């Protein structure tokens, strides 16, 4: 993956940087206003998770294409503590508790494809794709 399409997440300010880069790429791919806003919100969640729970990590963007359509892939990586109870974290209805975070189920909803790999003590990698319709 191209270096320039990644943003390192170390401080809260980097969340804005990641959103900006992601939105720019999304716009270039051809996503409309609503989808751009959804993608930006998904990026916020991913970046904030890194910032809050892993300390540091990075978020990368890639324009992708399959036979039928173009899309944007977001990959969020960190070497943090990992997520122990995946099934609990992905459970619906309680992620937006109090409304402070959409959480990972929110990211899954905002995007089209969603995949998560996490190992206890070895960090987390989340891949999410939004397809252009």
């Amino acid at each position: 993956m191209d270096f320039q399409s990644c943003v390192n997440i170390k401080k809260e300010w980097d969340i804005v940087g990641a959103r900006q880069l992601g939105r720019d790429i999304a716009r270039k791919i051809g996503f409309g206003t609503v989808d751009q806003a959804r993608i930006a919100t998904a990026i916020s969640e991913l970046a904030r998770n890194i910032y809050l729970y892993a300390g540091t990590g990075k978020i990368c963007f890639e324009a992708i294409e399959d036979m039928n359509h173009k899309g944007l892939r977001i990959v969020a990586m960190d070497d943090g503590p990992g997520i122990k109870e995946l099934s609990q974290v992905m459970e619906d209805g309680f992620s937006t508790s109090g409304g402070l975070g959409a959480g990972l189920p929110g990211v899954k909803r905002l995007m089209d494809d969603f995949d998560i790999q996490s190992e206890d003590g070895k960090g987390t990698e989340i891949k999410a794709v939004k397809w252009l319709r």
Partner: protein
Amino acid sequence: MSTLKLDLENYKELMQQYIETQDEQALYQAEQFSKHSMQQNISPEEIINVHVQSLQHLYPDMPEHIRSSLDFLLETMISYGLAYQEYQSLRERQLELKSEISVAANMQKTLLATEKPEIEGLDVGAISIPAKQMNGDYYHFVKDDSGALGVAIADVVGKGVPAALCMSMIKYSMDSFPENRMDPGVILGSLNRVVERNVDSSMFITMFYGLYNINNHTFRFSSAGHEPGYYYDSKQDYFEEIDASGLVLGVSPEATYEQCTKEVHVGDMIIMLTDGVTECRQGDRFIEEDEVLEIIKQYAHLPAQETVEHVYKHFERLQDFQLRDDFTLIILKRKV
């Protein structure tokens, strides 16, 4: 996609109509439009988007700052859109759970069913209505070898599913007691050990157990911390509390249960109930004990089953048709 486009046209026209005429009909249709959109799972941010597009079609010279402001507004709606989608899936899950619990409630009804005994000279009325779907109150009739009638009335501390599970345990334990050993104190003693052994210590059951001897018309009873019953003396038109000392079930394996006996005269009644009857509330006010007895007396001339039903209906209405606790009331009236 095509429906959304169609709706865009629709929205634009309605909006234009409203801008031009300011009339209520357009607003009414706006409401219909949004309900229709909700049916199609359209999120609020998409409504904002349709709004922006409609404005641009109608007013291509819309000031740039207005356009920007609406983009900003759209951004704030994304989180609301997520909550909306979560709402949809929560509602589905809730419907599932509801039907699951209603199946369980039906099972519970079958499991806990007890037949009201037909006994010469004794008029029996019983009603038990759960506050939610599952009943945490329980009553049970059983005739022993000598023809005496055993009556159990119980209340689990707690409601809903856990209480129901607990009650089914009580029911199976009682079913497995031999039918010839029915001393109230002994029965409560055995149940106490079962509950103590099997149930989490945070869960308690209160029970009142009475044995009506049809031959000499005496009523022998014990209580495991249950709401006291009443004896109604019809000659003196007077209610007397009947109670016996004993710990709630499940607290201590060594609990013992006092046994008391009461002679029952012709025309008199024995009343057993749970705190769902005596602790009825009207708004913020608790009903007084006297009020409950007053209402019972008001319907006492009827057959016992009609009495308990009328009393229930009275307190149901008083509580706005929303019981706060399970409601169980049993009346035994000596006829001859």
